[in-house]
């Protein structure tokens, strides 16, 4: 495993695109926090009332950015046949899978850590004192964010393996996402709220919806969590199967 990480590190280290993406992601996360605080201030809401729930919810919109990164990073390897070359040189196909699994995990952890760090920083510099309560209350939302993010990346990775081309994978991801959300909204059936993207979306619901739309018949929180974990396992299993059974070529 250390070897796989070393190899991935060799690939990523001089990869400007990768660092640009992760850097810009952090900056955007920062902007989200800044705007949230600013809005609270001008609306006279105490900034100490900031919550993990609220921040993980808003930050969730930036997950798409990480999805782009995973898709582009993976399809790049496909386009230039470097997956294939790695196997020819002596990696096994399952090692190829595990090294990208590690990368996806790493990106999800990076996102979660960034959120954590920014939360602390903003709590510290806010004029209202940092309440231990705000900090420790609902901190499990950080885990929700992590598993949701990792689930989306797992779906993105699988799509990139099947479709092989960056642009097509991204388009497909968006289309499937929309179809998923529209189906579960339109049918208003509890079970369809457990489709992959809906599950991810429902794991951290909007804490202060402008329109009080029907969140009423959502499955229970734990069921949604199990469903997301199920999709993490499913899509990684599918990626594993695809990588070990199919031809490796662009």
């Amino acid at each position, binding site marked *: 495993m250390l070897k796989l990480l070393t190899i991935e590190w060799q690939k990523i280290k001089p*990869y400007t695109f990768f660092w640009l993406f992760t850097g810009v992601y952090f900056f955007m996360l920062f902007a989200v926090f800044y705007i949230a605080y600013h809005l609270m201030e001008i609306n006279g809401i105490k900034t100490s009332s900031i919550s993990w729930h609220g921040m993980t919810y808003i930050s969730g919109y930036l997950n798409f950015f990480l999805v782009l990164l995973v898709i582009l990073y993976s399809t790049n390897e496909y386009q230039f046949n470097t997956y294939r070359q790695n196997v020819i040189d002596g990696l096994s196909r399952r090692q190829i899978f595990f090294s990208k699994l590690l990368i996806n995990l790493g990106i999800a952890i990076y996102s979660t850590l960034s959120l954590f760090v920014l939360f602390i920083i903003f709590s510290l510099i806010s004029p209202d004192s940092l309440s231990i309560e705000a900090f420790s209350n609902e901190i499990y939302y950080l885990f929700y964010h992590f598993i949701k993010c990792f689930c989306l990346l797992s779906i993105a990775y699988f799509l990139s393996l099947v479709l092989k081309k960056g642009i097509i994978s991204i388009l497909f991801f968006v289309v499937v996402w929309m179809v998923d959300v529209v189906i579960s909204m339109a049918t208003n059936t509890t079970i369809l709220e457990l489709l992959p993207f809906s599950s991810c979306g429902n794991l951290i619901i909007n804490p202060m919806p402008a329109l009080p739309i029907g969140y009423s018949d959502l499955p229970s929180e734990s069921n949604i969590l199990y469903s997301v974990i199920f999709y993490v396992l499913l899509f990684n299993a599918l990626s594993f199967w695809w990588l070990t059974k199919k031809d490796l070529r662009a």
Partner: protein
Amino acid sequence: MILKVNSLTKKYGRFIAANNISFEVEEGQVFGILGPNGSGKTTTLGMILDVTSPDAGSYCWFDTTPGSNQRKHIGSILETPNFYQHLDAESNLKIAALIKDVPYSQIDVVLQRVNLLERKKYAFRTFSLGMKQRLALAAALLGNPKVLVLDEPTNGLDPQGIIEVRELIQSLANEGKTIIIASHLLDEIEKICTNVMVMKQGNVLAAGRVDEILSSQFGIHTSSKGAKDSKLQTNNNMEEIRIEIAADDLYLLELELERLPYVVKVEKRKETLMAILNKNIDNKSINQAMFDRGIVLSHLIKIKKTLEQQFLEITK
């Protein structure tokens, strides 16, 4: 045994890219796979390197069950040079070295061997096709593997580069390495291979020692058993031997040649005649026969069919 391939088959939909391919490669052989474009060479090599999943059949490297570790001792180029565009030559080889468990110190050695040492800090995407190809060769040489699998290694090289790479392959063969090479540069196969397998439309048409494949076309029976196995034996009755022949009086020469029992046909060329014989007659006898008829030959060569001509015939 270095490699044993049993009935490998690959289908793309209903199209059969490789059909029931079987062959064996022994230690020290330079094994050529010869075939026109799209005959399934790359497909076959892809299967034995585990990047193309076969629909049927099996293969076995080094007499043991297949596994990724075996490929660390096989240096391979498949189709095109595949490298990370954003990395320089050295970093690309570092990745290959990490995968193969080879120390970084070897990188300069292999780069030197393909004349790319001074370009090692240049990004791969800035390389010319020939340089990319040579970098691929360098990667294949990492770890001094005892087996090399080379899919058209001279593709994209200039004449100088082709000669260099051929010499490199030759010297690797002389070091006792086993080399499996796919190519449609036929004289290349003829020059450097000990064994050859001819493919067409996914099928193996012939396989055997290079000299046997050549001689079977000429009907010269070598007594080794490989020649008997060769499917090319069936072509024996179609054999034709050509000689290029000239004398001062071409007209007289033509007349006399046509009287010889073993001459099938005489064609006029610019300053010579081309005679097709139905038997392999040595030059001395032909010369003697003409001399007996009062003709002094100014020119006589037997046109040996090259592998290329044969190849074109077999795969027609």
